[in-house]
């Protein structure tokens, strides 16, 4: 028996943020309040304030350093991008290429790992019968409240013991699981996987892992995408721990732009902004492709919280 023979379960993560329904006609007052010109003024102002810093970062990245201190600010891209990118990748103090590669490797690995281990544990906690299930579920929730940053110093000592300081695995392995991820997956499994489906697979002789792999995982795809994206973003953005444990010769991209920021004596803004643009690029791509799902996810999380 396969998943296709049963009715497809509801998939909340597929939904767009729901628009408030309009009132049926003849109901007297309008449900949604009307927008005024002031509303649009406020929204356009928000739009400009949100987009301007990013846009300006890209503009300066395509110009010479003087553009950063120009007033009124430069608003259109110039022709210096290729030169800036060239200088960025050959800059010795920043090791930008290494940083970029490291970030790509770390973010991808961490995202894949979090999705795998969290869905595995989430599935077990949601559907499998075993002693201590309630305890372990509570334990997962408690771990979400533990601020890992507080353990910075001991974690550094631990990295010394393992001899991992300065190596890329130090920014990967500690983040390969997440309590938030396990909890998210558990909730999603509870909502989407009917018990009958698992029973049927069990009768067909599937091992538990096989049930997870062939029955559960395909149904989890929407949740996997969201968790994978959020984890990728988080890892890509991670700055504090990278700064603590890595060295300038083997940085992540965020560390590397901080090197650009600190090392230049007469600060080369065009170079810094080109680096900043690269450090933001994957996130911008995610925004353009998945922005809508992310908006939905944030709003949905708020209701459940």
């Amino acid at each position, binding site marked *: 028996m396969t998943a296709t023979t049963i009715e497809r379960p509801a998939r909340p993560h597929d939904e767009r*943020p729901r628009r408030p329904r309009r009132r049926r006609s003849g109901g007297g*007052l309008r449900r949604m*309040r009307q*927008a005024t010109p002031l*509303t649009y003024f*406020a*929204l356009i102002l*928000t*739009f400009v304030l*949100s*987009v301007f*810093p*990013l846009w300006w*970062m890209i503009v300066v990245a395509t110009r010479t350093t003087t553009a950063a*201190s120009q*007033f009124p*600010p430069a608003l259109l891209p110039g022709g210096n991008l290729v030169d800036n990118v060239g200088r960025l990748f050959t800059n010795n103090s920043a090791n930008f290429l290494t940083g970029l590669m490291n970030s790509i490797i770390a973010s991808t690995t961490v995202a894949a790992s979090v999705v795998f281990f969290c869905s595995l*544990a989430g*599935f*077990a906690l949601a559907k*499998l019968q*075993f002693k201590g299930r309630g305890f372990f579920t509570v334990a*997962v929730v408690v771990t979400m409240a*533990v601020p*890992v940053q*507080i*353990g*910075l*110093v*001991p*974690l550094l*000592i631990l990295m010394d013991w393992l001899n991992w300081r300065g190596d890329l695995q130090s920014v990967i392995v*500690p983040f*390969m*699981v997440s*309590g938030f991820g396990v909890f998210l997956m558990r909730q999603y499994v509870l909502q989407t996987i009917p018990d009958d489906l698992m029973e049927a697979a069990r009768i067909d*002789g599937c091992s*538990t892992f096989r049930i*997870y792999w062939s029955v559960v995982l395909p149904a989890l795809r929407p949740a996997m995408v969201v968790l994978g994206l959020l984890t990728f973003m988080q890892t*890509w953005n991670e*700055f*504090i721990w990278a700064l*603590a444990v890595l060295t300038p010769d083997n940085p992540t991209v*965020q560390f590397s*732009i901080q090197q650009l*920021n600190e090392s230049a004596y007469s600060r080369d803004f065009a170079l*810094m*902004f080109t*680096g*900043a643009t690269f450090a*933001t690029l994957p*996130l*911008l791509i995610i*925004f353009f492709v998945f922005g*809508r799902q*992310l908006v939905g996810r*944030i709003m*949905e999380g*708020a*209701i459940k919280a």
Partner: protein
Amino acid sequence: MWSRLDIRTSPYLFITPFFLLFGIFGLFPLLYTVWVSLHDWSLIGGNEGFVGLDNFVRLAGDEKFWSALYNTLGIFTIAVVPQLLLALMLADTLNRRIRFANLFRMTLVLPYITSVAALAIVFSVVFGGEQFGLINQVLGSIGLDPISWQGDRYWSWAAIATMIDWRWTGYNALIYLAAMQSVPKDVYEAADLDGASRARQFVQITVPLLRPTIIFTVIISTIGQMQLFTEPTIFGNNGYAGGTQGQFQTVMMLVFQETFDYQNFGYAAAISWVLFLIVVVMGLINVWLTSRIKGAE
């Protein structure tokens, strides 16, 4: 036989990676912080002996610690209060029938997903220099004196708070918007019939009904902002000192300074531990306030 073994052991195998990795890299460091904080511990010398509560005694009398705590709490306050108010108003604005609703919602999430470090660099240039920062040039063009964004304690807080707000206001607005959309519309209709103004509806209906959500965002912001580090570090451009007089050095920056500049692991661990306790206490105060407010109804 095989399948019974499978059914009995699989659940434990499936949850093992999570608990194992969390135990090693999450729980252990947190507990070990206590141990390290009770010792004289340096990078090169390693553990140099038990010193009891000496590190905590030193901390209590350390002006730098109190200054860093003052900065952290100050920046937190001037960032979070306007941020949440703005977010509420923004959500209320978006909770109307508007054109391009999706575009405007996407706008709110854009700052949240961008690179913190990259944007901190951009903002430090916007505020930067005595004259050449964008904002000072705007001030100059309307005949005002430039502001010393880095030199003056409170102006530097304002600059850092702006970076935080830029990033988080839209995110919080989305959370509020979601909560607002689950408020039954009849409540507003009744208020309309009673002739209550928009502003009054906002203050007397929207805000009270959103209280649980508001408290949730306050708690989340507290946990995040007490560990503020990236924005002030990049803004400062001088390591972990937080300005020439430490005017915007946060507690987390002090932890880094003690760890890396002075290689004082024991003392840094003591600061971390105190920071953790402060976060917990602030969380408890939030919870206590919540239950008080609820009880009063």
